[in-house]
C-alpha cells in the first residue's frame, strides 16, 4: 500500500485496471456519450427516412432495426451508464468517502459494457440483420419471427443486466457503509438519495428482465412455449414480465435526474432546497408505485375491466408525488436570487419539459383515452419529453455543473448557453408536433405514413437534425474545457453550491476524502 498517495498510473493500464471511482466514472461518461452519439445517429437515419412520405433512403426492415437499436442503445447504453458514471464521480465526493465500497467490482461492471454493446451493434452486420422487433421486443415477433441475431441480443441483455446489478450493489454498499461520521440518511444530498432508491429498483427488476430474455432463449432454442399459445403459453405473459421490469426502468432513468436538478436549482437560486424531507418521501413513493403500474402499457391487450381500473387508479396516483417534486423545485426558486448559467438553464428546461411530459403521462394513464393514444406518436412524444428533456437535459446540466470541479477548468459560458437554446428549440421542434400527428392517428414505428402527416413529420425531422447538431457543440465545449478551459482553483466553483464535494480542492484530487470530513 506504499503507493497509496501516488496519482494515477500511466498509459492504457490506468484505464484497464483502475479501481479509482473518478477514472471509472470518467470512462462511464465517455462511453455513454459515445453510445449517445451512436443512438443519435440511428435517430437521424429514422428522421431522414421520415422526412417525406414514401420510402427514400432505407427499406422497412432496416427501418425497424434502426428504431430497435436506437431505443436499446439510448436506454441501456447512453442514459443508464451516464448516470452510473455520475454516481461514481459524485457519491464518494458527496458523502465524504475515499472511494466506492467495491472498487474492483466497479472496474468489472464498467469493462463488460463496451464488448456487450460492440456485440449488440455487430448484429447489424449479421445475416438477417439486427433485432427488428422494437426495444420492447414483444414475443412472438422476438422469438419465432426474429432474425437469428436475436440470440446475441439476448446475451447482450444478460450481460448489461449483470453490469447494472453490480453497479447498483456497489452504490448501495457505498451509501450504507461509507458515509462520513455525522452524515445521517436525512442529511444526504438528494442526488445520493435518488441514486440509493434507484439502485434498489435496479437490483429488484434487472433479474426480471433476465428472466424474460431467458424464457425467449428457451422458446427459440430449446423447444419451450412460454410465449407461444400453440404450446400452451401466452404472448401476453411476455408483456407482463417485460413491463414489470420496464416500468420501474423508466424511474431508474428519471430518479437520478430528479437528484441532479435538486442539487442544481438550489445552487443557482442561492436558497436551500424546499421540502427536503418531502422530496425523499416522494422519491420513495414513486419507487414503490412503479412496481404496481406496469400494465398501463398494456391497456389494449384485453385485460378484464377490474384490472384496467386497478392499473389506471394506481398510475394516476403517481401524479401526486411527482407533483410534489415539481412544486418543491418551484418553491426553491421562489424568492431566491437566481442566475442563469448553463446548468440552471438546462435544469429549468428540464422542469418545464418534464412537467409537460408528466401531463401527457397523466393523460395516457386514463385507460379509455389511452385506447386512442396507445401506440401512436402521442406516446412517442410523451416518452421523449420525459426521457430526453427529462433525463438527457438533466445529465447535460450535471456535466456543465460539475465539470469545472472535476477538471479545474471553466467551460465557455456563451457556448454553453448557445448549446442550451439550440437544444431547447430543436427538441421542441422535433417532439411537440408529434403530439399532433399522434392524436390525429399516426401509429408509431412505421417507416412511411399517410399524406396528412407530412408537414409535421418534416418539421420533426428538421428539429431532430438541429437537436442532433447541437450535440457536436456540446462535445466541442467539453473537450475544449478539459484541454484548454480557463483554469480555476476555487473550491466552490458556483457561489451558491452546497455540499461536501465543494469543500474539496479544485480540480478534485485523485483520491477523494482520505480522512472523513466534518459534517455539519
Amino acid at each position, binding site marked *: 500500500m506504499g503507493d497509496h498517495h501516488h496519482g494515477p498510473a500511466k498509459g492504457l493500464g490506468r484505464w484497464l485496471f483502475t479501481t479509482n471511482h473518478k477514472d471509472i466514472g470518467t470512462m462511464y461518461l465517455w462511453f455513454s456519450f459515445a453510445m449517445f452519439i451512436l443512438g443519435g445517429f440511428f435517430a437521424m437515419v429514422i428522421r431522414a427516412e421520415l422526412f417525406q*412520405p*414514401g*420510402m427514400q433512403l432505407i427499406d422497412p*426492415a432496416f427501418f425497424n432495426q434502426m428504431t430497435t437499436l436506437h431505443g436499446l442503445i439510448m436506454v441501456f447504453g447512453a442514459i443508464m451508464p451516464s448516470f452510473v458514471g455520475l454516481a461514481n464521480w459524485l457519491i464518494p465526493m458527496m458523502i465524504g468517502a475515499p472511494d466506492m465500497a467495491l472498487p474492483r467490482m466497479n472496474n468489472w461492471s464498467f469493462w463488460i459494457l463496451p464488448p456487450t454493446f460492440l456485440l449488440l451493434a455487430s448484429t447489424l452486420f449479421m445475416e438477417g440483420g439486427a433485432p427488428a*422487433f422494437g426495444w420492447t421486443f*414483444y414475443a*412472438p*415477433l422476438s422469438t*419465432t*419471427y426474429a432474425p437469428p441475431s436475436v440470440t446475441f441480443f439476448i446475451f447482450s441483455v444478460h450481460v448489461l443486466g449483470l453490469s447494472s446489478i453490480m453497479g447498483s450493489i456497489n452504490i448501495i454498499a457505498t451509501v450504507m457503509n461509507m458515509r462520513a461520521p455525522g452524515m445521517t440518511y436525512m442529511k444526504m444530498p438528494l442526488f445520493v438519495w435518488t441514486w440509493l432508491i434507484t439502485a434498489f429498483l435496479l437490483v429488484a427488476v434487472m433479474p426480471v428482465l433476465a428472466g424474460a430474455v431467458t424464457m425467449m432463449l428457451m422458446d427459440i432454442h430449446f423447444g419451450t412455449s412460454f410465449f407461444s*399459445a400453440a404450446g400452451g403459453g*401466452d*404472448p*401476453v405473459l411476455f408483456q407482463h414480465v417485460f413491463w414489470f421490469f420496464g416500468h420501474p426502468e423508466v424511474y431508474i432513468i428519471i430518479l437520478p435526474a430528479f437528484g441532479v436538478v435538486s442539487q442544481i436549482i438550489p445552487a443557482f437560486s*442561492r*436558497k*436551500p432546497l424546499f*421540502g*427536503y*424531507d*418531502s422530496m425523499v418521501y416522494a422519491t420513495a413513493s414513486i419507487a414503490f408505485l412503479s412496481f404496481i403500474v406496469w400494465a398501463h402499457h398494456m391497456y*389494449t*391487450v*384485453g385485460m378484464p375491466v377490474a384490472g384496467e381500473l386497478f392499473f*389506471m*387508479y394506481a398510475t*394516476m396516483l403517481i401524479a401526486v408525488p411527482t407533483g410534489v417534486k415539481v412544486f418543491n423545485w*418551484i*418553491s426553491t*426558486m*421562489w*424568492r*431566491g*436570487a*437566481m*442566475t442563469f448559467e448553463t446548468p440552471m438553464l438546462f435544469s*429549468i428546461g428540464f422542469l*418545464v419539459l418534464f*412537467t*409537460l411530459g408528466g*401531463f401527457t403521462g*397523466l393523460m395516457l394513464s*386514463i*385507460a*379509455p*383515452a389511452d385506447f*386512442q393514444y396507445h*401506440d*401512436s406518436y402521442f406516446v412517442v412524444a410523451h416518452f421523449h419529453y420525459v426521457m430526453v428533456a427529462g433525463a438527457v437535459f438533466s445529465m447535460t446540466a450535471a456535466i456543465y455543473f460539475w465539470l469545472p470541479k472535476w477538471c479545474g477548468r471553466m467551460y465557455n459560458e456563451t457556448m454553453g448557453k448557445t448549446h442550451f437554446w439550440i437544444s431547447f428549440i430543436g427538441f421542441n421542434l422535433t417532439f411537440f408536433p408529434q403530439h*399532433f400527428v399522434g*392524436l*390525429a*392517428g399516426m401509429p408509431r*414505428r*412505421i*417507416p*412511411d*405514413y*399517410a399524406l*396528412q402527416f407530412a408537414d409535421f413529420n418534416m418539421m420533426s425531422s428538421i428539429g431532430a437534425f438541429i437537436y442532433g447538431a447541437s450535440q457536436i457543440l456540446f462535445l466541442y465545449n467539453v473537450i475544449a474545457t478539459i484541454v484548454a478551459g480557463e483554469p480555476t482553483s476555487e473550491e466552490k466553483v458556483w457561489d451558491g453550491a452546497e455540499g461536501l464535494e465543494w469543500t474539496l480542492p479544485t480540480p478534485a484530487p485523485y483520491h477523494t476524502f482520505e480522512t472523513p470530513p466534518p459534517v455539519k
Partner: protein
Amino acid sequence: MGFKAKRLLQLAVAPVLLLMSVIAFAADGGLSSINMSPGVTEVGRQIYDLHMIILGICVVIGVLVFGVMFYSIIYHRKSRGVTPATFHESTKVEIAWTIVPFIILIAMAVPATTTLLDIYDNDEAQLNVIVKGYQWKWKYEYINEEGDNVAFFSNLRTPQAEIYNTEAKGENYLLEVDEPLVLPANTKIRFLVTANDVIHSWWVPQLAVKRDAIPGFINEISTRTADEGVYRGQCAELCGKEHGFMPIVVNVVSKEEYAEWFANKQAEAKEVNDLMAQTFGMDDLMTRGKSVYERSCLACHGANGEGGVGTAIAGSTVATGDVSGHLDIGINGVPGTAMQAFGGQLNDVDMAAVITYQRNAFGNNMGDLIQPIDVYNHKKGQ
C-alpha cells in the same frame, strides 16, 4: 402577498383563455390534424370528451405552475439585486399540494371509470365479425347464423410505384385496401380480434376501436356504428417488416346496401367453389398465380423470387423438386419460421395457381401444371 397573488392571477388568466380558445377551436373538429377525432360513435365521443377534459385540466394546472415559475424567474433574479429568502420547508404547504392534486385526480377518475365501463359493454351485438391479423394483412370473417360465413383478406392497395416515389401519391396513400370491411350503419358490432402469427393491433380512430390481435387468444370489443362513411385506420402494434403497410378501411353502409353486399359475397364464394372443380391451362394458372404471388409471397420472397426475409424461390430445391413437397410447404408452412401455413389463407384455386407460378417463373421452368384438385387431394391426404 395580496398584491402578488393578484398579479399572478392576471399573468395566469390571459394564457389560460388563449389556450382554451385554441382548444375550443380544435374541439370544433376544424383542426382534426392536430387533435384526436371525436369519431362517429357514441364511445368515441365519450373518449374525446374525456380527453378534452383532462387536457383542459392539465392546461390550467400547467399555466398556473409555469405562471408562478416564470414570475419567479423574472422577479427573483440576482441581477435585480434581491436578497434570497431562507425558508425551506412548510408542512402545511406540502400537505396542501399533496391533497389538492389527489382531489383533482378523483375528479378525473370518475368520468374515466364511467367511460371505461361503457366500452366494456359487449352485450347484445347484432353482428359478429372475426378480425384476424396476418403478416401483413387483415382477414375479416362474418359469423352468419343463416347460411355460409363470409371471409376475405384485406390487403394494401397502394402500388409499390407510389411508395417508392416513381408515381405521384394518391389521396389515400397507404390508407387504401383492395377489399374493405363492410358494416351496416346503426348496428352494434362485436369484433372478435385475434392473430395468425405475431401480435397486431386493430385500430380505427374514428370508430374508437383499438384492440391487440394476439395469436392464440381472442379479444372482444364492441362498437355501435352510426353514420354511413368510410373510416380508415392502421395496424398499431409493431408486427415486422411491413407493419406500416397493413391499413384498415371500414365502409359503413346502409343496412339494405349491406344485405345486398353480403348476398353478393356469398355468391362469390360459391363461384370459387365451382372453379375448384375445373381444370385450367398453363396461361390461366400463370396469370392468376402471378397476382397471388404479388399479394401473398412477394413481401418475403422478392419480386423476382430472389428471397429476402424468406428463402429464394428462383432455383430453390423446393420449387424445382418434388411437387408434393412444394405443396406441403405452401399449405402447412414451415413451423418455427416466418413461413406461414397458407392452406387456410388461399383457396385451392389460388394455391394451385401460385404453386404453378413458382415452379415455372423466375427461370424455374419445371413445366408442371398443378390443378385445384391436386391441392384438394393433398389436403385430404394429410
